């Protein structure tokens, strides 16, 4: 994927200092996303990786306004999506879609597959009657299912098939931008490749832009043009996938990458893994300063005092760390 030319393309979506805090009672605030900034260019796939609970999904959901952001802004195609009125918001939902993580929970068990895929068209009044059915059949065939499946119910399908129905639903309104919220993590490895390949083909044919959220690093490397690494609600490192894997700069990224198993016993046996001590701190009371300080072996005084900003240390390579020069 890295041969794709991305220089000079305009940004389709920009996220500026996005924050999403949840009240969790007793005056405590859970800072799920705490100041995230990045942008995605047209036709690009940005991978968003991190441990569970680091705010990846919350970021994705706030970007399509499933959640109201606490602070910061999301600019889609020149519009601030937090300031849309009802009509503009409805129009925005036609351009930005989402593919969900759990293929068993993301399809309404009481609707036929045809109605599930057709729902977007019904809401926006795009197509009716025969035209609607024709589009549903077309979408089913695009994702590799049969037109006979339109009258079936979700429980009759396997996980991979259901995920493809979810993709067809997202495509039904002909969006430009799709948030893929861990679309493959609930699937078998053999089915994962099938879904990822389908997503890549669709991107090529329709010029889609993806935000690909995942925790499986090898799959993200395969599909993403650039990758952002998140930790405890903040982006730690952001660069092209090749550079990220070849020369990671942030200590957290280095630790993450060293956890990927290498399918060669000789190499696997001799290499040194970076083992992180401790757990991810609770996002309810995150530490002052750098989010990663408690598990970082290079930690210095400045890390405890001031949160590092995401700086461009090399062209196209952003790192949020005081240590990296």
């Amino acid at each position, binding site marked *: 994927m890295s041969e794709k030319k991305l220089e000079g393309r305009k940004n389709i979506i920009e996220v500026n200092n996005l924050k999403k805090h949840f009240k969790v009672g007793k005056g405590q605030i859970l800072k799920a996303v705490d100041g995230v900034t990045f942008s995605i260019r047209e036709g690009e796939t940005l991978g968003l990786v991190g441990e569970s609970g680091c705010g990846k999904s919350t970021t994705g*959901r706030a970007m*399509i306004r*499933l959640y109201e952001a606490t602070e910061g802004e999301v600019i889609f195609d020149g519009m601030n999506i937090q300031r849309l009125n009802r009509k503009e*918001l*409805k129009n925005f*939902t*036609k351009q*930005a*879609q*989402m593919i*969900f*993580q*759990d293929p068993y*929970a*993301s*399809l*309404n*068990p*009481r*609707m036929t597959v045809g109605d599930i895929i057709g*729902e*977007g068209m019904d*809401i*926006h009044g795009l197509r009716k009657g025969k035209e609607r059915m024709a589009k549903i059949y077309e979408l089913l065939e695009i994702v*590799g*299912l*049969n037109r*006979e*499946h339109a*009258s*079936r*119910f979700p*429980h*009759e*399908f396997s996980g991979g*098939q259901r995920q493809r129905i*979810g993709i067809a*639903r997202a495509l039904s*309104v002909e969006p430009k931008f799709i948030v893929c919220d861990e679309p493959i993590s609930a699937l078998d490895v053999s089915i994962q490749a099938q879904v990822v390949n389908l997503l890549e083909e669709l991107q090529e044919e329709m010029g889609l832009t993806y935000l690909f959220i995942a925790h499986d690093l090898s799959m993200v490397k395969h599909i993403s043009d650039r990758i952002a690494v998140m930790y405890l609600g903040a982006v730690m490192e952001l660069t092209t996938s090749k550079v990220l894997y070849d020369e990671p700069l942030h200590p957290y990224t280095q630790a993450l990458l060293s956890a990927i198993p290498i399918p060669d016993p000789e190499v696997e046996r001799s290499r040194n893994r970076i083992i992180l001590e401790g757990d991810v701190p609770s996002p309810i009371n995150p530490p002052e300063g750098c989010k990663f300080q408690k598990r970082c072996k290079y930690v210095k005084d400045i890390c405890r005092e001031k949160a590092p900003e995401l700086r461009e240390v090399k062209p196209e390579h952003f790192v949020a760390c005081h240590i990296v020069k």
Partner: protein
Amino acid sequence: MAELSKDKFIIEGKESSEAEAIVRPSLTYWADAWRRLKSNKMAIIAMTILIIITLAAIFAPIFSSYDYRTGDLLKTNLKPSSEHWFGTDELGRDLYVRVWEGTRISLFIGIVVALLNFTIGVLYGGISGYIGGSVDNLMMRFVDILFSIPYLIWVIMLTTVLGSGLFTIIIALSIAGWGGMARLVRGQVLQLKEMEYVMAAKTLGADAGRIITKHLIPNTIGVIIISITFAVPTAIFSEAFLSFIGLGIPVPNPSLGSLSNDGTRMLLLEPYQLVFPALVISAVMLSFQIFGDGLRDALDPRLRQ
């Protein structure tokens, strides 16, 4: 690893499009539920009994030559015979007609109360759960306060204000009963509105009305139906209890409770006067319980195979 080109492989057996075919016939939710209910013999027997009792309650008083109100004082306390199938009471009224008329009134109360509970409970619980937050908190605390008052007190208060009668009983039992349904629906809605398919609908631009009618209600309806099935016998029994202690349907209208009450007075002399209404009320209660259990097994999605 050596590169493997695609042309070194051929597909043996199934083409990919055939591999996606589903052999099992397509069943809607209701067809599937009916299939499972049919395989439950007890539930089907209970359902049959309920249908027979309902039909008898509707038609037996119509086709009988006797009237449930007028008695023949020359024929009091008769034993069951070919003329009076269930015998007569102390005022010489035909018990067969009175039992079915009583069943009719009891079933009517049960069904109307259950439907009222359903309507109020689904609306209230649905709104409370869907909006959530402090509105939900406020609405549910109101329910808690309302239901800390026992229904007997409601009945006594309403009887004082409205006078005793069918209407009073229905109102009192509904006031006391809709909270359970509201809590149930609220719980379901709270759970369902976080489901990914609801989020998917929101992502597609669906408004609240569409989410409620297309996604939330269809997925709660099974639980609601089960709850209604259990609400009917509860209401019937509450009414029977009220009539039994003299707070229920005023004379001469019979209900299964007041008939049982009359029967107990004659228990030592003419036991059949208690046996028939007691048998019918037991059959109704038991059948509703068994049928409700069967419905739950058939409708509960967690038991879907």
